[in-house]
């Protein structure tokens, strides 16, 4: 009886010994996670890296690399984030994990301003996506990529694929309606100088442009009508054409400026008011 008791006690001690080994990486992971949760991303990365360096069993290769990538992403180190997402992807065992990492890379690319890469990746993912929910996710991030690319029309189309009344779709439509047509602003200024500026709400500039063009246009025509060919050529070349060119260039510039304001306002609104997933 006593013999069995001894053996049991010894066994327990060996087990304690074993669990002592096992707890070390776990504790390190907990420590790194706590730093991550506290948004202390720099130190969190260090501790995840330390865990990876000492983790002989390669047990945390996926989770630690993934967390490092996230920490880099939150710290706006997008290039490093993408590198670590790729490393984590190599250790991902489930297709779901790989898919999610690809989406994280897409999101990082959107933030980094490389929307074309993000769109290309989404196209590739769409070819492999089997389920409707995955396709919806792809449409969602495609919409975001187009929004950041300032292509609100395509963004609206992408969100419409998820739901015709999607909140972001409606917002994209609104932005699209508000935006000025740069081509129209330019063309109308070709035909009627100053009207491109009127179209974009720059009335004073439009009036000035119209005035200068009328003045130098009239003077040029008058010179030609009075057979002062040379005067006509000089006034037309050095004055009228200069103001005419300035007129449609200005119209284009104003349209672009106003569009940028509208885009920035919309993006700010999304950033502060939209409650759904963001890149």
């Amino acid at each position, binding site marked *: 009886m006593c013999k069995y008791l001894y053996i049991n006690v010894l066994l327990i001690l*060996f087990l304690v010994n074993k669990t002592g080994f096992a707890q070390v990486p776990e*504790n390190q992971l907990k420590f790194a996670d706590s730093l991550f949760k506290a948004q202390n991303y720099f130190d969190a990365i260090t501790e995840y*890296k330390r865990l990876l360096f000492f983790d002989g069993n390669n047990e945390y290769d996926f989770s630690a690399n993934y967390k490092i990538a996230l920490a880099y992403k939150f710290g706006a180190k997008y290039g490093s984030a993408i590198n670590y997402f790729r490393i984590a992807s190599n250790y991902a065992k489930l297709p779901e994990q790989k898919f999610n990492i690809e989406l994280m890379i897409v999101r990082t690319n959107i933030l980094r301003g490389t929307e074309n890469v993000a769109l290309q990746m989404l196209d590739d993912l769409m070819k492999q996506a089997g389920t409707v929910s995955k396709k919806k996710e792809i449409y969602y991030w495609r919409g975001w990529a187009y929004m950041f690319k300032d292509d609100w029309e395509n963004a609206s189309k992408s969100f419409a694929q998820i739901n015709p009344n999607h909140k972001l779709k409606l917002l994209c439509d609104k932005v699209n309606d508000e935006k000025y047509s740069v081509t129209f602003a330019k063309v109308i200024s070709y035909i009627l100088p100053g009207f491109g500026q009127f179209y974009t709400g720059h009335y004073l500039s439009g009036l000035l442009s119209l005035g200068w063009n009328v003045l130098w246009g009239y003077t040029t025509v008058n010179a030609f009508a009075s057979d002062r060919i040379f005067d006509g050529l000089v006034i037309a070349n050095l004055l009228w054409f200069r103001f005419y060119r300035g007129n449609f260039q200005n119209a284009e510039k104003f349209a672009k400026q106003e569009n940028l304001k509208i885009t920035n306002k919309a993006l700010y609104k999304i950033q502060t008011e939209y409650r759904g997933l963001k890149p």
Partner: protein
Amino acid sequence: MKRKTSQISTIFYFLFFFVLSTSFAQVVSKTNDYFNLKNRLKFGNYLFCQQDYLRAIDEFNAVNKKIKNDTLDFKIGYAFEKMRKYDKAIEKFSELNGNKNLSGLSRLETGKIFLLKKEFPEVYKLLIDSIEYKNNLRQYAGRLKYLTYLYDNKPLPDSSNYKLWFSSKVLPDVMKFYRRKQNPHYKSETLSGVLSAIIPGLGKIYVGEIGDGITALLFNGVLGFLAYNNFKANHKFRAWLFTGLTAVFYGGNIYGSVAAAQIYNSGVNFRFTRELNLFSKKHNYFLPKFKFLCE
């Protein structure tokens, strides 16, 4: 029977304390394992070789606080240098001044940093007494010094110095830079201005801006002709208007030609420095490659 029980108890107690003590020691040591000095150093070296210098510095500093290590100081300085925190790197290297083994190497690295910072007099000050360097470091100090002359605006030393310090493998390339530095293919700003004063646009053509030169010639020619023609036809207002315009364009043409020569010369300097930088980086500024840094 009683004796047997007593023996078993003794063995049990022995095993109990043995397992307990090893278990305790392992648990305690393992919990702190990642943060003991040896492992921090290991991890720091790993980060250093991964070029994660900022984190590597943190690890090295943690070790250095407990056990002062000159090699670590050197590594920290080197990491700062790689991060382009030149002042901190210099500060760290200066701490190694009295060190028997690393003083020379840290001075060489400091010299390189001064070169990167374009503080050339400091490089000379540091390397002028290259005779002081140990024999194996003298050659590096000499090369760095003569490399600095290629960056500096000082008169170049005699080419024989370069032949003395640089190996035959790199010497032809070094001499190419030497010749380019000695005889840069500059365009004379004065000549460019004078040429444009004689024939408008000719200075620009001399600098290589042929299109601009022809445009300047045509503009000045047409405006000058118009001024002359209007004077001839007694259209005084137009004649003076075109004279004024001709004068403005003529002055602009001279100024533009001088500016074009300046831009051309800046381009020559820029290309020279860029190519020299690439060459120097390729050869690590002719400094030794430290194997101990990433082993």
